[in-house]
């Protein structure tokens, strides 16, 4: 039987009606998908599920957890791990593809084809260390967490305003594909 919207396939997966019993539902299987990342859901965030997945991929790209050629978790594995609608995962992966961040490979799955991280991991580690130093100083000065966030956000805004438009665009969270390498 042919069902237009009925059959969920991995994006880019080759059409195939065979192997049903081999590829049937695999309850209890967690992770092990060959992807460097695992998705999680924050039910309290109010952010639509598919956007949470999109954000997590972008976040992982920025922090270097995901890099060129890496595979995203298979749709089926995400569904099994999070108990979410497969269409939601497909929607997230389609969004990532539209943003130019991923591409489907026939018969294999979805892979990273662009990166959002502007610096390499060692540099990132150095920057993180410097930031931790700043946080310690802020803490010693008596600033609480909200104070630190407020100060950082305000300073970042000042910095971006001074740098002008192009940098501001690159620095915006969730800002599409401008920063794509």
């Amino acid at each position: 039987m042919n069902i237009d919207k009925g059959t969920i396939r991995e994006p880019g997966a080759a059409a195939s009606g065979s192997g049903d019993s081999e590829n049937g539902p695999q309850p209890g299987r967690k992770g092990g998908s060959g992807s460097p990342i695992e998705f999680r859901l924050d039910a309290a965030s109010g952010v639509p599920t598919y956007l949470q997945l999109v954000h997590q991929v972008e976040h992982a790209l920025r922090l270097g957890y995901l890099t060129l050629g890496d595979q995203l978790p298979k749709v089926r594995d995400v569904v099994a791990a999070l108990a979410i609608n497969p269409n939601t995962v497909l929607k997230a992966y389609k969004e990532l593809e539209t943003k130019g961040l991923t591409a489907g490979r026939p018969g294999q799955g979805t892979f990273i084809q662009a990166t959002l991280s502007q610096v390499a991991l060692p540099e990132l580690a150095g920057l993180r260390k410097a930031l931790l130093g700043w946080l310690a100083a802020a803490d010693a000065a008596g600033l609480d967490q909200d104070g630190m966030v407020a100060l950082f956000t305000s300073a970042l805004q000042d910095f971006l305003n001074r740098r002008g438009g192009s940098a501001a665009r690159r620095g915006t969270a969730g800002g599409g594909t401008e920063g794509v390498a």
Partner: protein
Amino acid sequence: MSMNVIEADGLGKRYGGTWALRDCSLAVPAGHVAALVGPNGAGKTTLLNLAAGLAAPSAGGVTVLDGRPAGSVAALDGIAFVAQDTPLYKNLPARDMLHLTRNLNRRFDQQYAEIRLGELGIPLKRKAGKLSGGQQAQLALTLALARRPRLLVPDEPVAMLDPVARHDFMASVLTAMAADGVSVVLSSHVLAELERVADYLILLSRGRVQLAGEVDDLLASHRMLTGPAAEADQYAERLSVVHARRGQAQAHLLVRTTSDDPAPPGWEAHPVGLEELALAYLREPGAAALPGPARGRNNQQTEVTK
């Protein structure tokens, strides 16, 4: 053209003098997890029983999987119903439940069922009654899925399960959808969990369909407006208000509108979630927003009444 897994036209079911379901017209497209939501006694189980062919309609008709009359052999081959209390013969070992189901059905994938129970850690020789609630539900689901249905219909599948068993059960259902393209129509009154699971919503209230459509479309066509209570009545006349909540000074109006419609001056518009939307409609049984019937008698797209 996309096919419909359930299509009802003027469907009604009367038990004695009481209509359990009345004038129900809907078309549930394939490829979705459709959630049938409503208070107890709204007609959810009745509708599912009629679609599964377990009861005969008192009025109208219902077909499944693109026009197969409910209850016909062709329909029964393609649809798997999992009843509310996951009925199993408690004294039969899991292996015998498989054997029984295989012999009662034209199609049964024994290998698939055994692999699946193995993965779930359900011993074939254990009696069904000795399994945990979660395992019994998984066994009933396995029996249903091994029939290789195109449409899976679980009635209140997770109501009796603990949180982990609930998560694992839904993961199994959704994985079947991802792997084999099974469409799902389930009933539930656990609204909070539907947000992640359902992408099609059917709200039933007092035996009637109150709201039906793709979740994304429904959410995009509703907004919560917050503003001065003194102006609420004035806007309530002009806007399609589904449900209003008023304080002394402030009012919240859940309205049917699109994001393109600007909020009235002095009012804030917020997007709504699935639970918020469903609750608003369930609190206002008189409100309805329905797409026209699939093979329409009337063609109006939406109708909102207060």
